[in-house]
């Protein structure tokens, strides 16, 4: 079903909206949640929470892209669950992903500058628009969808060294860009 029709179902408060959302986006939700939580049961529970959140937020919200909205909700839900479960169930792949992001800022800088969140995410978006398509998509797959390096290798047909090299260069460029924009995390 078309996304605009699914959104209309939410506005009509029809429970079919959740069925249709699940039919269309369950694989996406499970995939993102599992990439972060590394546990299928937790991932499915996370997806159910996501559908409830979407039900509770539409309306009043009318997302321009249901795909992007759902992926954001499931990502945030999974991240919160990960923090909750962190002590008991570690996901080494996700820990590695977070440690990679440390290259994007100066770790010796102890001064925390409070900046409006939208300023940071807008700057990251602008930076991503400024780089090559392939480097951009690989960066987003890795740090938005939390895709494993192996899956990226498989999808792009590149060796692990090449994918990591590309991600490394993009992180360094992002660091330089954020510094130039005066943004400190």
């Amino acid at each position, binding site marked *: 079903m078309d996304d605009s029709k699914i959104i209309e179902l939410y506005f009509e408060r029809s429970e079919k909206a959740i069925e249709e959302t699940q039919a269309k986006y369950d694989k*996406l939700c499970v995939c993102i949640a599992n990439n972060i939580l590394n546990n299928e049961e937790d991932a499915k529970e996370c997806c159910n929470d996501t559908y409830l959140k979407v039900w509770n937020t539409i309306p009043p919200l009318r997302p321009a892209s249901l795909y992007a909205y759902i992926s*954001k909700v499931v990502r945030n839900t999974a991240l919160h669950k990960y923090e909750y479960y962190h002590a008991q169930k570690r996901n080494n*792949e996700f820990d*590695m992903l977070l440690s990679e992001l440390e290259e994007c800022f100066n770790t010796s800088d102890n001064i925390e500058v409070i900046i409006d969140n939208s300023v*940071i995410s807008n700057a990251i978006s602008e930076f*991503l628009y400024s780089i090559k398509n392939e480097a951009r998509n690989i960066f987003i797959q890795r740090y938005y969808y939390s895709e494993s390096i192996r899956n990226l290798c*498989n999808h792009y047909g590149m060796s692990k*060294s090449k994918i990591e*090299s590309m991600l*490394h260069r993009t992180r360094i460029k992002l660091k330089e860009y954020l510094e130039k924009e005066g943004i400190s995390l």
Partner: protein
Amino acid sequence: MKSKKLFEEIGNINENLIEQAAFKSDDKTKNRAIWYRWASFAACFVLIASVVAVIIPLIESNNIPNIFSVEESSTNESNEKEKGLSKEDDENSFQNSEKEDITSNDNMADPSQNSDQEESTKENDGINNLIFVNEVNSISNAANEFPPDCYEEVWSWDEVLSYYGKNIKPTYIPDNLFKISNDTDIELTMRGDGTLYCDVVDFLYREKSEDDVFMQMTPTISISISKMNFFGDMIIDFKTEKKVSNIKNIEVMIGCEENNYGDEKYDAYIAVFNYDNVYYRVYGSNISLDEFIKTISGCIE
């Protein structure tokens, strides 16, 4: 904490960027995957039936060739060879095994010892060899530190060929797969001082789709080639003792991993070998073992 904050901020990037980068799937792809699965079953059935038809008369005549031993070989002859080949068993990664001189004939099963095998090899275009498929428990990433000042440099195909000193393109790829990778401009990673840091050249072949590719369920072969080796970037944990295959007199380590993607399952094969002082890593998912072996064979020309 900062990296978690940055991860959260990346979650708020422009929605168009999120959609553009997505690996999308749809019913067409899913149907094709199911169709492919059934076709694979049928192909396997035909293959097994053919092997049985050949092997049974040979067993009856007490003349068993040492060919195409998939998974585990049950012959005593093969087991004896495996003992000679298992000196790397305590190593955990393909990478480590690549460091061995794997082209040495000392530990290698001699494919020419049996005249039936020679005949069989001719009949099957050189793909009937001693094949062991090791069950893979998991494949994990190893840390890979890059020089802080590294940068990318684009090499022409001629420059790459000159560096490798031979044609590195595979001569066989399954008919249903098409080349995706670009082989006109190859990006290589250089150190700050201008020396080559990473010389890996990749080839990607994938079944064609009008839609964006749902990567896990689409038949895919990727081949990575390097003179410098792969920097120990993958650690393969085997379920059982490692056994080395022999294809065209080259020792090849082959592994098979069962993967899940949502509720669907798919098999992926990985093979690593050194041929003519060049390291090869071949990865195939959603393809038959037969096609995978033919592809490896096509790299050894």
